[in-house]
């Protein structure tokens, strides 16, 4: 038992119960369905902008790209243009690969002692974090984009196509969406890694577990509503369209599970800017990735250098001209 994950787990469970009981028991649909989502959107946008502007205001005086390949050098030495870029184009490709393929995670290694009498420390390539992260992020992206069908009217054709591709296995009715299942299992894998891998568990804090439990809760309630308990989708779309057109309505007959889902999603959005989830915006600003390695090829002036009063030679000569001429020293201007 570890309070670092028991506390967030209990917290998420209580938050779920709060919304569920608030709707089923106290009839607070308007609070969990209307007030909270609007507050969450405001908190998300305001917090996100604030956080990024804070980062933008901080000075970046040094070029500190991590160099993972041969630097630009003599013409007959082959440069690694992406892993040690000296131009913006290389940086662009490097960032693209980082953002879409999590390239630095791909290099993840693990350290372990050999299980024999030598007991030597060895490092090996560990790809599963990368696989899990990729599955998780892309599944989550597809799930979020898919949910736009509740917020757009008419629904654009590209969304219909995405739904078609996502539901292409056509199992059951309503048909299974692959992304939902992948999202849940990938999140569970990332959680299991934190709990059962002693080295990762040691560095995991409540702030790491809380969003994971929250996302798992969101996925479970969503899957439960779609495949098991069932909700009136048209009523829900009326509700979501009400939110985005600023004419909120509460649909009749929709139960607590839906509001618990909405409440947890709202919490995730509101919590986003103050949490580690901000790596979504932060990855674009990672200074070890978004800079060209041209430290010496270009002159980089320290941005907070103040103007220094320089005593130029002309001034010096103006000061000491007569004395210099007396001493027989050469001067530029005689008079």
């Amino acid at each position, binding site marked *: 038992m570890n309070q670092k994950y028991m506390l967030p787990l209990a917290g998420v469970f209580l938050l779920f119960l709060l919304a569920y009981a608030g709707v089923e028991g106290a009839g607070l649909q308007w609070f969990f369905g209307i007030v909270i989502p609007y507050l969450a*959107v405001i908190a*998300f*946008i305001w917090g*996100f*902008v604030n956080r*990024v*502007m804070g*980062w*933008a*205001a901080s000075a*970046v005086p040094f070029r500190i790209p991590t160099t993972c390949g041969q630097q630009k050098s003599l013409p007959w030495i082959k440069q690694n243009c992406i892993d040690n870029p000296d131009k913006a184009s290389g940086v662009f490709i490097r960032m693209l690969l980082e953002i879409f393929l999590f390239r630095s995670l791909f290099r993840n290694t693990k350290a372990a002692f050999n299980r024999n009498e030598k007991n030597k420390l060895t490092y090996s390539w560990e790809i599963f974090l990368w696989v899990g992260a990729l599955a998780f992020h892309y599944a989550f992206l597809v799930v979020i984009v898919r949910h*736009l*069908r*509740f*917020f*757009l*009217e*008419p*629904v654009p054709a590209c*969304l*219909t196509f995405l*739904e*078609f591709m996502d539901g292409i296995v*056509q199992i*059951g*009715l*309503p*048909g299974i969406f692959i992304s939902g299942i992948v999202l849940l299992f990938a999140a569970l894998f990332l959680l299991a890694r934190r709990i059962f891998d002693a080295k990762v568990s040691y560095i995991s804090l409540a702030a790491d577990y809380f969003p994971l439990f929250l996302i798992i809760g969101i996925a479970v309630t969503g899957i439960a509503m779609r495949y098991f308990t*069932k*909700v*009136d*989708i*048209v*009523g829900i*779309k*009326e*509700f979501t*369209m*009400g939110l*985005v*057109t600023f*004419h*909120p*309505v509460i649909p*009749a*007959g929709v139960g607590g599970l839906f509001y618990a889902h909405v409440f947890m999603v709202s919490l995730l959005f509101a919590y986003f800017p103050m949490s580690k989830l901000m790596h979504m*915006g932060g990855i*674009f*600003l990672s200074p070890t990735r*978004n800079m060209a390695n041209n430290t010496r090829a270009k002159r980089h002036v320290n941005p907070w250098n103040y103007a220094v009063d320089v005593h130029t030679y002309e001034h010096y000569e103006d000061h000491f001209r007569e004395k210099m001429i007396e001493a027989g020293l050469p001067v530029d201007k005689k008079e």
Partner: protein
Amino acid sequence: MSKNAIIAGLVVFVAAALFPFWFNIGGTNAAPEIELSEKAKAAKQCVLDKYDMRANHMSLLDEWRDSVVRDADRMYKSTNGKDFGMSLSTGENSCLGCHTDKAKFCDRCHTYASVTPYCWECHTDPKEVTQ
């Protein structure tokens, strides 16, 4: 990264995050009305209660399909005491037998909720056949 580039990126992000709000400017929250046929209005009762039917009809059809195809059992005893033929589109006692206008009954909500059921890859709307 230069401050201007960061602000430009931020503006794009905020615009994208608020996409549903500006996409729907001038839109309404009203769901499409479904039109019941005279026969359906007269019957007053469907297979299940209204909310159950709205939320659960696809699962019911899935169960019916299994029942008909695997067990050749074509009669459904509803909880409200009536018998229904387990068929989507064949005969007077089927779904479309009562809800005669597919476009005004099925399609309106399906389009609204962006659902494209594959029912119609095998079944046909009887109206389309006679036309």
